[in-house]
Each structure stands twice: as structure tokens, then as C-alpha cells.
């Protein structure tokens, strides 16, 4: 479904040139949930943004369903692929109601039956009619994230790029969102690329996972091998250890 | 307080741009030039028709009235130390014509030109200057010009020529420098800040009484008023009416008004179809609140006067007694086809009292249904539009008046020998307003050639009557008063109606 090859990207120019992505390559099968983990600043979000088309100065190749991706966001790409952002507070326009946010893409793509589609979509993400005319500040973080997911799904894309969709949320809310994502995938056969720093989330939701370090993919493995000790790459191991290690260390004290 | 041996003058120096006698315009420069340079003759400040000797000890008018011969004193010296000769005088006058700058205009009106200047203005010997008139005119006029116009100042030819650049006869240098024989020498001039004049000790009349004259740029009248009452300024010129009025009651100050030959007037353009109609002009004449304006606005700026010829000349007729008469004006307007009035614009200088006159006029015009909008601007903008004949009404000030001669006023305000646009007689306000009367023109031309004073005066009276009956395009309202406020400490200051006020006899306690 998605193939990324030798993807490279730099920011800045001259002396401040900063190579953020280096020969990144992976492929994702249709219907798969692909995880992307790594420490802060390793370039996870950047990969997603390249795929989505938010950056245009990348080098390398990216293709979806065999079709190479261009550098511009075109209508087709919008219909195929959407993204959910990490921060539920920043990804919704503070002065737009839920209804405005959800109907806008429909209007842009000149789709019909807007009211009904919005209603359906809200139900799908577990929000009832009463949320339709609320502003972001009138909703909790979890509810906002549901709206963001609804907005991403309203154009009926095949691929969803998820950039740490739950890391700003409480555990209890995180569980709801993760369940929702799992449910949507099961129902509509979506393909996800999920960026996270929580290995627990990876194990819970992903089929395969790539580990990033300083702009490179250093390891790609089945997510099951994280829990059963199958990770061999030293960096992956250190991540797994860190997730558990404070318990060991503390126990030692 | 100011030092005892210095005269400190506070005034707005914004319009003091050039000191070159050939090119300096405006009134402010007259007072400066009169003290830096000498003239051949001087007019008596108390009676302008009296001409006193100055550099010229005596003069003779040829019996045919076609030439003037002046005999210069032998003891005058320039501030450079050079002796002043008739050659300097001739050169100075020729220079004005050759440069053809602003100040050449009175001379050109007598028929002089750059071409004939050297021939007609000649130094016969070191002490004799002969001026031959190119065409018949009243030689008294020429004599007055010699005594009042900036252009008649006598320059130190060698000093000026030593600063000549590209054959400009020293014009660039003289903008900011002076080379004269007057009682004071220019020490420093910082434009729009201050000008210092220091006594020239070898002045031929004997040194001036004060060591130094300082002119200071004080643009705000109120500041001037404070300075006068605190004694930081000895003489304030160009103050606003209310401040003068206040100082009139101040024990430390003396208010000294001097009547000038210039008028405040309302002018209309007869190119405009409305004002081409005599009835409309007559209506306008009846829509000016002469009394109100002169009582409420004009104190210290002017005195009521409704004739084009200035007050105090033998030929001047008494005021015709025009009055605000709205019903009559309305009737006239109705007759002319404007029963409901019309719209028009008044161009006016944004300074008092002009802007105030315009505002008052606007008010009375409105009573007759004439809706006038005011466009205020700098002199440049207002008179520029007038020169281009692009205006409807202008409230302004003008009318020659340096020379105490009816011709000076009439030439400036009424005379218009050629009314075509192409003639571009921009220096005549008659032309600017497109007022054209063959008969008046003929009378003016004749009168200035008339050698008999009584006949001449009679002709000038006739002109005034004709102007009244033909309803001229320019309606004078007041004759200008130049009011200065003096500190009580200042003595011997006599303001000159021609603005050539001499400071050489001024002293202080």
C-alpha cells in the first residue's frame, strides 16, 4: 500500500543546514497498522508530514498503491490519506464549531449531503448530536481528539496517519481513543501509520513497528517481538528496557 | 532679559528664504535688507510722499520726465571697506534686470529689460547715476521704487563678483550672504533659527546705536507673547491678533501698528460663468460682512477699506460704504438666475486673518444660499491656483503698495492689458481674475503719464468710480496693518509703511 524509499529531508540552509531524515525506507501493507517509535526529535512526525504532503522539499521516493507521490497536495491525495495530530488543543480551529470543521472538507470537495454525512461521522466516532455545534473549548481533550479523527475520516480516506494521537490524553481517555481506532480499522479496513513513544500502545495496536533514531530507521520488527523479548537491535532493546527499567532499578534500591 | 546693546526681534522666519536683492520676495526680507544695504533715497515713514536723500545727496528729474539723474555722496563705504560709487549703483540695478529674478518686475513694468539695462542705467561718473526711462511714466514712481524696493539696494560689486559662479552675478552667494554699505553687517544666519546682524562701525551716517540686532525664529504667536512679557524679546512681529490685543494692556509693552499699502480682499474669477455676471459680483459685494469682519477679526490686522487705492493718498476716494445686505444680494442672485444660490469654493491661506475672513464670508454666503467650501493652503498653493486662473473665489492679500502711488495699487489689482490666457500676465491680479475693462486700462495708462498732479488725481478718482460701477473682480475689505509689539525699553523704532524699517536709530534703556 505505502512504500517509502530513501526519503531524506533537511531544514535550513548554509551553516544551519540540519539533516532531519536520512535514507528512511519502509513499506506498509494494505490494512496494516504500522508503528513508528523513537525518541523525541528522531524525525517521526517529519516522516508523516512528508507522506501527507506538508513538506515539499524532500528527496527520495514515496508511493501509495504503486502511484508515486508528488510534492503538492492534490484533491486525490486528500481523498486517499488524512492525518490526525498529536495535540487535540492545537489541531482544531478555536473559533470553528465541530459542524464547521467537519463540513468544510466536504464543501471543498463539493460533496453532497453534507449534513447527513457529518451526523453519521459524529456517531461513528462516538459523539452524539449535541456536540455538533460546540466549539473546541467546550469539549474535553478526548472529545476533541474524536472530532479530529472524524474530520480526518470524513473524506473517507484509505490511509490514516496518526501522530501520537493519544500522548496528550489521560490513560482513561487514551483507552477510549485506542479502542475507537481499533474499531474503525476493523470496520473500514483502513491502513494506519501510528507514531508514538509508548511501546505499550505499539504492542496494543500495531502489527509491525519501525524504530527511528536520529532521522534513520534503525530497526523494523513485528510488534509482538517487543513483548516476548524478540527485539535484538541494541537501541530497540534499550527502549524496551527503559519502558520497564524504573521498576527494576527502584526494586534494587 | 535681553542685553542692553542688542535688539532681539522675535518673528516667524519661515518665509525668509533669500537675501538677494534681485530675487528676495516677501515682506520679511525688506526689513533685513534695509539695514544691511543702503538705498539711493528713502521715503519718510511718517509721510511717504516725502523722499529723503540717502546714498544720493540730490536728484533731478528731467523736464520731459524721461530721466532721473542722481548725485551720490562721496563718503559712503561698503562694509568691505571699498568706497561706494555710482558704478556700483548702476551695476546693482542692471544686475536685477539681467538676472530677471522676482524683483525685476517693477523695473520691467517701466519698460526696462535685460537688454536695455546697461544703456538706460548708467554711471555718468563716480558720483552721478543717470536712469533714463524707456517709456513715458511717472518718474515719481521710479523714485519711490528706488526708495522702497529690495531691488534698489546698492551692492558691493567687487565683493559680489568675487563670489560669482558660472556667471550668476553672485546670485547663489547672495542668497545667504550680503555685501552692502548699511549700518549692520550680516554675521550669522541660520535659516529658520536665528539671524545676527552686527553694527558696521564705519557707517557713513555714523555707527548705529545698538551693537547687535538678533532675529529669532519664533513661529508660535503665543510663545512670542510670553517672551515679550518676560522681556526675552524686545520686538515681536507678526503676532496673532488676540495676543497683540492682550499685550496692549501689558504695561511692559507698546503696540505699534503701521498701515501698509496692501489690502485684504475677496477675489472672484470672471472666467467662471457665474462671476462673469455683474449681478452675481454685486451680490457678492453685498454678502460680505464688512463691519463684522473689521470689528471681530481685523483688529491689529487691518483697517476697514473698500477701495483698490490705498488710504492716505491724495487720489484716494472715501469708502463707498458697502454693507452686508442679504435680501438685496438674494434679489440680485435671483435676477441672475440663481434664486437658490450655488456651490463654489473659496481658496484661502491657512493663516489668520485670511482664513478667518474666509470663514466669515462662508457664513454670510450661506445666508444667501451660496454653499462655499473652503480650501485652505499655503500661499504657494492659493496663489499658484490663482496664477493659473483656476479658482472661483480667493480670499487673499495683495495690491502692490510699496510705492505710495495709486498706480502701484491699480497696476497690481486692476490693470489687465491683455485678457487672453496665452498672455500669461500672471503678475497682474487683474489678469488672474480675468477682469478686463478697456476704459479703466486706458485711464490707468494715461494717468501714469500725466505730468499735472491734479489732472492725474482726477483720473485716478475716475478709475475708482469706474471700478465701483463695473463691480471689479477684487473687493478689498481692509487695508493691512503691520502691528509690532515693542518692549517699553525700546526707543526710536519707527515702523515703515513700506516695510523698510531702519534700525540704526533704535536704542534701549
Amino acid at each position, binding site marked *: 500500500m505505502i512504500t517509502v524509499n530513501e526519503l531524506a529531508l533537511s531544514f535550513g540552509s548554509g551553516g544551519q543546514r540540519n539533516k532531519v531524515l536520512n535514507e528512511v525506507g519502509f513499506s506498509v501493507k494494505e490494512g496494516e497498522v504500522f508503528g513508528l517509535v523513537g525518541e523525541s526529535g528522531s524525525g517521526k512526525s517529519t516522516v508523516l508530514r512528508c507522506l501527507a504532503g506538508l513538506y515539499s522539499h524532500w528527496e527520495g521516493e514515496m508511493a501509495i498503491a504503486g502511484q508515486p507521490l508528488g510534492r503538492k497536495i492534490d484533491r486525490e491525495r486528500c481523498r486517499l490519506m488524512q492525518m490526525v495530530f498529536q495535540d487535540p488543543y*492545537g489541531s482544531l480551529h478555536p*473559533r470553528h*464549531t465541530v459542524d464547521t470543521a467537519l463540513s468544510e472538507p466536504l464543501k*471543498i470537495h463539493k460533496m453532497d449531503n453534507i449534513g447527513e454525512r457529518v451526523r453519521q461521522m459524529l456517531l461513528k466516532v462516538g459523539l452524539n448530536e449535541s456536540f455538533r455545534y460546540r*466549539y473546541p473549548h467546550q469539549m474535553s481533550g478526548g472529545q476533541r481528539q474524536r472530532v479530529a479523527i472524524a474530520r480526518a475520516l470524513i473524506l473517507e480516506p484509505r490511509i490514516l496517519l496518526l501522530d501520537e494521537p493519544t500522548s496528550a490524553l489521560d490513560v482513561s481517555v487514551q483507552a477510549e481513543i485506542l479502542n475507537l481506532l481499533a474499531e474503525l480499522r476493523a470496520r473500514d479496513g483502513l491502513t494506519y501509520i501510528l507514531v508514538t513513544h509508548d511501546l505499550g500502545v505499539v504492542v496494543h495496536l500495531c502489527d509491525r513497528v519501525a524504530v527511528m533514531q536520529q532521522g534513520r530507521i534503525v530497526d523494523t520488527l513485528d510488534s509482538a517481538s517487543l513483548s516476548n523479548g524478540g527485539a535484538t537491535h541494541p537501541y530497540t532493546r534499550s527502549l524496551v528496557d527503559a519502558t520497564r527499567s524504573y521498576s527494576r532499578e527502584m526494586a534494587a534500591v | 532679559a535681553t542685553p542692553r546693546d542688542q535688539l532681539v526681534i522675535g518673528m516667524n522666519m519661515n518665509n525668509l528664504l533669500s537675501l538677494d536683492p534681485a530675487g528676495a520676495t516677501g515682506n520679511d526680507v525688506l526689513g533685513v535688507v534695509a539695514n544691511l544695504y543702503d538705498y539711493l533715497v528713502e521715503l519718510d515713514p511718517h509721510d511717504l510722499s516725502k523722499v529723503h536723500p540717502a546714498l544720493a545727496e540730490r536728484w533731478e528729474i528731467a523736464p520731459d520726465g524721461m530721466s532721473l539723474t542722481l548725485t551720490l555722496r562721496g563718503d559712503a563705504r561698503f562694509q568691505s571697506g571699498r568706497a561706494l560709487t555710482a558704478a556700483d549703483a548702476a551695476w546693482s540695478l542692471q544686475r536685477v534686470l539681467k538676472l530677471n529674478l522676482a524683483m525685476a518686475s517693477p523695473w520691467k513694468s517701466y519698460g526696462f529689460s535685460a537688454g536695455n539695462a546697461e544703456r538706460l542705467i548708467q554711471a555718468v561718473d563716480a558720483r552721478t547715476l543717470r536712469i533714463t526711462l524707456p517709456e513715458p511714466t511717472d518718474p515719481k514712481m521710479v523714485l519711490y521704487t528706488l526708495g522702497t524696493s529690495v531691488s534698489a539696494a546698492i551692492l558691493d560689486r567687487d565683493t559680489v563678483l568675487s563670489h560669482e559662479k558660472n556667471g550668476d552675478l553672485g546670485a547663489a552667494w547672495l542668497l545667504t550672504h550680503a555685501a552692502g554699505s548699511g549700518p549692520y553687517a550680516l554675521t550669522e544666519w541660520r535659516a529658520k533659527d536665528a539671524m545676527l546682524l552686527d553694527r558696521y562701525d564705519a557707517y557713513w551716517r555714523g555707527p548705529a546705536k545698538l551693537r547687535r540686532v538678533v532675529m529669532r525664529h519664533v513661529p508660535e504667536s503665543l510663545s512670542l507673547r510670553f517672551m515679550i512679557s518676560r522681556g526675552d524679546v524686545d520686538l515681536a512681529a507678526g503676532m496673532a491678533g488676540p495676543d497683540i490685543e*492682550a499685550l496692549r494692556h501689558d504695561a511692559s509693552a507698546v503696540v505699534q501698528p503701521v498701515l501698509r499699502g496692501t489690502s485684504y480682499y475677496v477675489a472672484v474669477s470672471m472666467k467662471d460663468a457665474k462671476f462673469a455676471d455683474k449681478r452675481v459680483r454685486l451680490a457678492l459685494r453685498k454678502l460680505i460682512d464688512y463691519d*463684522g469682519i473689521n470689528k471681530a477679526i481685523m483688529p491689529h490686522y487691518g483697517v476697514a477699506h473698500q477701495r483698490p487705492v490705498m488710504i492716505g493718498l491724495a487720489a484716494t476716494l472715501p469708502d463707498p460704504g458697502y454693507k452686508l445686505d442679504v435680501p438685496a444680494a438674494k434679489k440680485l442672485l435671483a435676477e441672475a438666475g440663481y434664486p437658490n444660490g450655488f456651490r463654489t469654493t473659496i481658496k484661502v491661506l491657512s493663516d489668520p486673518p485670511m482664513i478667518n475672513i474666509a470663514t466669515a464670508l462662508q457664513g*454670510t454666503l450661506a445666508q444667501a444660499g451660496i454653499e462655499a467650501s473652503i480650501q485652505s493652503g499655503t500661499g504657494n498653493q492659493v496663489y499658484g491656483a490663482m496664477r493659473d486662473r483656476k479658482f472661483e473665489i480667493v480670499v487673499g492679500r495683495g495690491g502692490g503698495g510699496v510705492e505710495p502711488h495709486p498706480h502701484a495699487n491699480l497696476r497690481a489689482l486692476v490693470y489687465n492689458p491683455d485678457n487672453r490666457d496665452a498672455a500669461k500676465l500672471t503678475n497682474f491680479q487683474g489678469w488672474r481674475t480675468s477682469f478686463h475693462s478697456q476704459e479703466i486700462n486706458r485711464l490707468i495708462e494715461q494717468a501714469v503719464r500725466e505730468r499735472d498732479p491734479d489732472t492725474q488725481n482726477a483720473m485716478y478718482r475716475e478709475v475708482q468710480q469706474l471700478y465701483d460701477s463695473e463691480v471689479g473682480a477684487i473687493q478689498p475689505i481692509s487695508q493691512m496693518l503691520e502691528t509690532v509689539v515693542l518692549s517699553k525699553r525700546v526707543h526710536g523704532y519707527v515702523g515703515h509703511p513700506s516695510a523698510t524699517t531702519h534700525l540704526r536709530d533704535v536704542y534701549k534703556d
Partner: protein
Amino acid sequence: MTAAPKPDAAPATPPSPRAAGPATAGSALRESLRRALRHLLLNPMTLAGLIVILLLIAVACFAPWIATHDPLRQDLAATLQAPGAAHWFGTDEYGRDTFSRLVYGARTTLYIVGLVTIVVGPVGLAVGATSGYFGGWVDTLFMRITDIFISFPSLVLALAFVAALGPGLEHAVIAIALTAWPPIARLARAETRTLRKADFVAAVQLQGASPLRILVRHIAPLCLSSVLVRLTMNMAGIILTAAGLGFLGLGAQPPSAEWGAMISAGRRYMMECWWLVAMPGAAIMVVSLAFNLLGDGLRDVFDPRS
């Protein structure tokens, strides 16, 4: 550079059972308006500002009924009369009633303020938002132009403009507007630059929205509040600049009653006739103070930190 402002700091309250109340578009808007209004009204300073401005508007609207005399009616026989029963605030040098002129002057003042705001707000917002959103050479070009207008001596610009078009209120207003938009543009640009990186902009980009749509529907409304606040703060400056132009004889033309022009004309008489300057001066001060107070209050309403 300051740290990027934290996203809308509204704390996530624990989902309470009554969160699912009925809500419609209208009520949501009304609700936020009501809050803003209440906040405005609760602050005594802001309230005072608001009242003065409302009063000003009322005075302007009902000038003919409030004024005791015809503001243009001259009476050269009764000039410079001190305040008294016949003329509450005295008369000016043409014998016109100062109080009535002051009342009618409210119209002119409002007109100036309104017109400048109408010109400056949209121009500044459009230039700033476009410049900030596109960046690159568009930004460079627009910012150079803004720089030119900022470093142009404002007086020259105003004078030149008035000189070119002739003095008059409209021209003075345009001239003031010409000098007043660059700061607004800079403000809008700075705001846009932080917004441009916001996730919700990325989200609409991904939905295929055109730059124009993003600018108009997403970015401009968010810049609007700070622009609006800045504009209300500018009002005082605008009135004073107009007064300053009036002082130089370039503002409103006689006989129109404009406060700045009234001061400028009255200053010649101010030693003897204090009311000629004091009355319009006080009016300018009170009104611009009111606009300032309102601006401060608005800022508090819009500022999420407060």
C-alpha cells in the same frame, strides 16, 4: 523571540455528567458573546470606557437635538463670550456656540475614527496575513513595502497626501490611514507566522483547502482579535493625529466642527478664552481615554492567559 504561546490553555475539566447539554450554533455563539460582554461589564474601567463611547455615539446620532444652537451660525457681534446661560461653553471667535460645535464635532470625530479603522484594519490584516502565510519572497516584498511606510516620516506622508489632494477631512483621514496600517500589518504578520505552523492549518491544507480559503476563513479570524484590540488602542492616536493635522491647518476645513481643528483655531485665544481649547481638549482626552480603556478591556477578553 518569545516562546511560542502554549496552545489554548483551557484546562480539561473532568468530563462531567452535564457536559452533554443541548447546544446549537446560535446558543454557542450567544454564550461566548455573553461571557465576553459580562467580562467587559465587570471591569469598571472597561465599563467606563464603553459608556463614554456609547455616549459619544449617542451624542453624534442625536446631535441636532442635543445642540442648543446651530453650530455654524456665526454672530460676529457676540464673539468670544465666556461660558454662561446663553452659551454653556461660551462662543468662539465667530460667535458660534462652542457647546453645539462640540456636540456636532462628535460626528466628525467618530467619522474620522471609523473611516481610518475601516481602511487600516482590512489593509493591515490583508498585507500582514498574506505576508506571514506565504513567507518567502512574498513576505520579503510586503515587508519591504511595510518598512518603507514605517520609515517614511509619517508627517511627510500625511502632509504630502493632504497637499496632493488638497486639505479636507477625507484626505486627512486617508493620510492618517496610510501611516497607520504598517504596525497593524506587522502585528498580523507575526500572528500569522505562529498560526501558520498550527496543526489546524496543516489539517485544512491536507483537506485540499486553497491558500485563499485558509487565509480568509482560518487565519484572518484569529488575527482579528488582536488587530481589533490594537485598533481600539490606536483610536486615541488617530484622533490626536487628526488634531495635529488640524493644528497645521491640514485637517478638517472650516466651518466643520472637528475637535482638533477647534483646538487649533482656539489656541490663539486660549489665554483669554480658556474654554475654546479646554472644552475640545477635554473631549479628545476623555474619548481617547475611553477607547484606550476599552482596548485594554478587549485585550483581557481575548487574551487566553487572563
